[in-house]
């Protein structure tokens, strides 16, 4: 049920953005996103759901720009699609266990619920950090138009290097 609700929310966001901005680019992005979302839901694929989320990023940012301004809109849209698609992808994967055709025992169900709660907690942490970044980046973006981009490049380079070291 939770999975259905989340999927419905994602479909609603995608269709809403398509209705607000009736441009060909938005229409294409939303269409592919809906297809990807359906594939992810049907075949329990977290990756397809994640892709579906990111395809709605740009249309959603355009909608939010009308309310929040450019920098905040892009940040808010990115945070929203990451959270929604990650959670739905996780629920899709977990449904392989909890919605197994032959059923599962109470222990497996309990473990799955515990994992689900831990995942939710981690997502909440993620949202908190993004909010902190948001608070810092908006005034910074006010100083120079490219500040946000510079900040992003710095962050990504740092973490790519970190990932490289970590993998090694």
């Amino acid at each position: 049920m939770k999975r259905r609700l989340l999927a419905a929310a994602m479909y609603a966001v995608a269709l809403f953005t398509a209705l607000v901005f009736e441009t060909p680019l938005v229409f294409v992005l939303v269409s592919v996103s809906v297809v990807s979302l359906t594939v992810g839901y049907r075949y329990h694929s977290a990756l397809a759901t994640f892709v579906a989320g990111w395809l709605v990023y740009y249309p959603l940012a355009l909608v939010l720009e009308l309310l929040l301004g450019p920098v905040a809109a892009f940040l808010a849209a990115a945070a929203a699609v990451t959270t929604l698609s990650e959670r739905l992808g996780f629920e899709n994967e977990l449904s392989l266990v909890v919605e197994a055709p032959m059923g599962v025992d109470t222990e497996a169900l309990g473990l799955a619920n515990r994992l689900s709660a831990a995942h939710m907690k981690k997502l909440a942490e993620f949202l908190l950090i993004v909010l902190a970044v948001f608070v810092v980046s908006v005034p910074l973006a006010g100083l120079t138009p490219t500040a946000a981009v510079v900040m992003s490049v710095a962050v990504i380079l740092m973490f790519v290097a970190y990932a490289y070291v970590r993998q090694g």
Partner: protein
Amino acid sequence: MAPKNKLALCIIIAVSGLLISVVSYSGIGLIAVPLMVFFVLDIGVPWGKPPKSDLRVQRKLGSPKALVDEPVLVELTIMNRGEEIERLTLEDMVPEGAKLVRGSTFLECGLKSGEEATLRYEVSLSQPIELRFGDCGVGVQSAFGLTEEKLALTAPASLRVYPKLLPRKMATGRAKAFTWTGSAPSKLRGGRADFMDIRGYVFGDPFRDVNWRASARLGKKVVNEWSPERGLDCIIVVDLSSENLPVVGDWSARGEVITCTYELASSLVASGNRVGMLILGSTVARIKPGFGSRHLRRMLDQLVNSLPGSVWKVQRIEEFLETFFRTQYRNSGGTLFFISAGISMPLFEAVKTLSTKRFSCTCVFVNTLASEKAAVVREKVVKKEAEEAGIRVARAELDWFELQFETISKVYEWGIDSGFTGIGKVVR
């Protein structure tokens, strides 16, 4: 920990966003910020070390032995002896042939240090076999599943699946299976057929043989004398060669051949006969003639172990008999039972040759047409209209071969529902 596709996707999206930002001078590249937060939160802080997993698995079966179609509980327990694992997937590899009847073979959970989790499911098998459980796949993932360490852990266990012994029995009578008797005295309790005479008691005579009325009349202890019963000395030749074993998709006639053999062997042994066995499959298995339930169990174990093969063929039956059952072969003694699910000319030739050498041969054909039809329908091998025609042709072929075999041996047909059927009569 190896990166998953999701991590690559995150990096591609972030880099693409940045490039578009630089070119278009827009804020689209800000996508990289939440993505990097997402990434760093998942992988851990830069100075943290990746968790070291020390996982162990243990498998427990509800019962090491089961009957065909009987559900067996499988419990796979995973223990974490290392550091805490945020997200873990466990998938058990169910051996080929086993059917999942309850539960899931997939588990997803988080495991703290020292904790354990158990995956439970039930399987059943449609034919007798020894099932060996082995590897299971374990994935140690980060919380958002951006990185994963894949492990293959082994939890060995074996399950032996035996055929069901149907309640029906052949009316073999005391040591008169299929009306032949052999030279060996029957080991059936009692071991006697007809009353012959009375004689004086000799020390060691069984107490139950004392004829008390005659003893009272004659004034001395006398005992009854019986004609000793003769058991059938027989060898069951089981044809499990791939050529003669019908196979449709996952279904094979092996299970029915084994059930038929078990039923026949059980009836013969229960009637006090001496039974030997020769199984022609992937390997040739020989069981010397013997009596009793322990001997029957030995034969059953060999049947369960046997697998279809193409090397050991019925054409060489005479050679096998000469090598493995020298006494019987030399004396042409006892009865040979041939059990096969597919009738072929090589089998006909083999039986004919042995019949001309004074061997008493009996052929039992396992009628698998109904099961085969069900498998054909299930696998959608042929069209609907072709099914009926195919069955009619197969039935006609079976009837024709049975008529040919009747000229050289006794012929019986066995079906899972009908049991043993002789020439126009049911032998049960």
